[in-house]
């Protein structure tokens, strides 16, 4: 492990320290500008809450993961195994997560609205609020807005994903492009991050002053939202230039590499841990290829253990480091998969009764919330939509979703679905 990295809890500045720091105030201004309750937001910032959001794109099967129904009509071939919490069983494909169950809560009562990827991914990640004619931000953008970058000054919303990287401004919706996601394609830093060898630090500072002057003139004639985003992204890039250690895989502890797995999600999850340790507010780790309409069971037999390895490793590490107190950990998809097994031995999309796992940040440990019926076809207890989950996540992060609102150019907008509420039993 690289122990030279700063930890967020080593930077618990007092309010006086924070306000007395010019840069800190500037960052706060950028990150929290349009909040209706800036004082509350400032209080939140001090707590250094963070989020690890693991997104399994396409739809992980609840029956092959968090809500197994062995020996039932739709239960599939796999067994259920006990976990570190007596009485809680999950799929045999998650043996390592089973040993971390005492840090986690599993919600088995999700019942959401969309059974298509095109609508489902966005609706779930935007919290599916009431339609007010605006595009709501993804959870990562919302957290970037509401919590800001923290003392690390690192980009508040980073997305470690397979494939290409870049700045994904569309995640931010009406919040504006600067709250978009900075995506690291395959965990790699943005291209040309390194300062060219021929440029000295002094020359770089002079160039930066010149750039700032030019920016001011450019910005004076253009829409604030656009120029602000440009400057914001540039500042993030300059911050990252000083944190190349975040991308240096040569110094990784080989035992960590082995423990997390050398596969894509293992490498990305280990990098997520580094990002969280460095103080990034919201880290999304994305895995693609979970849409198993065909060959679902062999597919999950291959996919789930890799997720399990990486996920259990980071939960274990965050817990060992005391970070679970401040890091909200979430693993989910846009929906679950049908109990019915189709002719391609696959499962289709099923938003009617599915599961997610979460932990940390005051989430009650070692519990399940809600349950499905005997065959796993429908929720047998109170159903929970993503709006309930958003309220719960915000509460865990210290954000009162019944009080705090967005200010969209004078239009007050609730940060989570008005008609839904916190799932109290999930929180300690």
């Amino acid at each position, binding site marked *: 492990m690289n122990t030279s990295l700063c930890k967020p809890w080593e930077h618990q500045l007092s309010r006086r320290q924070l306000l007395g720091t010019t840069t800190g105030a500037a960052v706060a201004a950028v990150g929290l500008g349009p909040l209706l309750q800036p004082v509350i937001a400032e209080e939140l910032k001090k707590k250094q809450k963070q989020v690890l959001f693991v997104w399994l794109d396409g739809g992980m099967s609840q029956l092959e993961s968090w809500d197994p129904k062995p020996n039932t009509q739709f239960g599939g071939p796999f*067994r259920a195994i006990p976990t570190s919490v007596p009485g809680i069983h999950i799929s045999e494909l998650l043996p390592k997560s089973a040993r971390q169950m005492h840090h986690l809560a599993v919600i088995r009562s999700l019942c959401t609205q969309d059974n298509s990827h095109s609508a489902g991914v966005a609706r779930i990640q935007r919290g599916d609020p009431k339609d007010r004619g605006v595009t709501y931000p993804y959870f990562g953008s919302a957290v970037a807005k509401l919590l800001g970058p923290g003392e690390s000054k690192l980009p508040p919303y980073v997305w470690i994903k397979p494939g290409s990287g870049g700045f994904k401004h569309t995640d931010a919706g009406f919040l504006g492009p600067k709250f978009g996601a900075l995506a690291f394609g395959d965990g790699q830093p943005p291209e040309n991050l390194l300062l060219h060898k021929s440029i000295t630090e002094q020359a770089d500072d002079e160039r930066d002053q010149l750039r700032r002057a030019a920016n001011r003139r450019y910005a004076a004639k253009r829409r604030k939202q656009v120029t602000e985003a440009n400057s914001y992204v540039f500042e993030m890039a300059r911050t990252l230039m000083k944190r190349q250690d975040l991308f240096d895989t040569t110094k990784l502890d080989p035992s960590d590499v082995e423990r997390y797995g050398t596969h894509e999600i293992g490498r990305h999850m280990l990098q997520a841990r580094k990002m969280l340790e460095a103080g990034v507010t919201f880290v999304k780790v994305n895995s693609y290829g979970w849409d198993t309409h065909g060959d679902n069971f062999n597919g999950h037999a291959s996919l789930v253990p890799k997720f399990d390895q990486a996920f259990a490793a980071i939960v274990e590490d965050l817990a060992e480091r005391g970070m679970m107190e401040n890091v909200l950990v979430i693993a989910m998809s846009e929906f679950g998969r049908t109990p019915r097994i189709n002719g391609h031995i*696959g499962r289709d999309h099923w938003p009617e009764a599915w599961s997610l796992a979460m932990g940390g940040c005051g989430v009650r440990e070692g519990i399940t919330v809600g349950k499905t019926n005997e065959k796993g076809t429908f929720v047998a207890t109170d159903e929970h939509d993503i709006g309930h989950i958003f309220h719960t996540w915000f509460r865990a992060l210290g954000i009162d979703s019944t009080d705090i609102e967005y200010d969209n150019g004078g239009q007050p907008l609730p940060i989570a679905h008005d008609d839904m509420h916190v799932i109290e039993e999930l929180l300690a």
Partner: protein
Amino acid sequence: MTEQPQDLATRFEPKELAVIGADPQVFAAKFNPSGKLLAAGGFDGRVRLWDLATEAPQELPALTAHDGWVQALAFSRDGQRLYTADSWGKLCAWDANDGKPELAWSLNEAHDGWLRDLDVNADGTRIVTCGRDQVVRIWAAVDGAPLLELQGHKTDVYSVRFHPEKQLIASGDDRGIVKLWGATDGQLVREFDASLLYLEHRLQDVGGVRTLAIDRAGKRLAVGGTIPKNGATVQGTPSVLLFNFETAELTHTLNFGASTHCFVHEIILHDEGFVMAVTSGTPGQGQVIFQLPDEETPFYTTTKLLNCHSINLHGPTGRIAIVTTNRGSNGNGRRLAENGEYEGNNSPIHLLQFAEAASS
């Protein structure tokens, strides 16, 4: 002289005899050696039985010793034993007992988890099994005593077959590796490279050796699966790779249609030299294919049977059993029956017969 494809078509085009409704779904269906009993392993852990000696197939009481899925089953050649295995790792031996099988012995943990395939050797003394625990095991048929454990596969082992005459075992894994072992000493004899049937796509290991067949002469090994295009909703070209058994040389690659047809799930190498195969892919897609290896196209194919998961031939009568899936098996979201119930799918089992046998 090799028979012409059109002649083969005349002799072997199958005629439908009956369709057995298996609800809930089943995997493979096998005739017993007399052809009077059909057994099928189910998604519900039951082994379903049908009496075929009656005018119309009559379902018999199911065998209920298993958990999870029963995907693998086989009769001994003398018909005295039925062996069945489940996805929780249990292996059972049933005395045939004149159509009312009784459990002879069982091993709860023959494998750790999904026991994917089994076979019985020619004289009925040994059983070979393979599974998700990456191991191939050989058992004494009489009492289930462990005889040999073959380790060397590094991933799931999907399929296993005894050589029809020699003391050899072929086993195929999810990376497309087929290993040939000595059945008595466990020594690795050679490997066959069927990695064409494997793809690492994103996080997923896709494809692999889904089925194996060895011809009666023991000269040809057939490996079935898909040449994968992608993971998740797997698509790929359904394919059979034919190898020279002695040299491990790949002699033929038979591709059976569009990528939506996806997997070859089972193969029979017929004594007349042609390959019988079934495919299943996108729901509603399925093929039955009979093809001579040296021909460009099948001499018989049909797409009327949907999602064909297994094919079994009763040689003496020319009867064929093909397990399929019902029409309209897929769909996203809530879809309820008229009575408001959430329904599962089922498996029509098509009983067919070669034309020449049907007419005789």
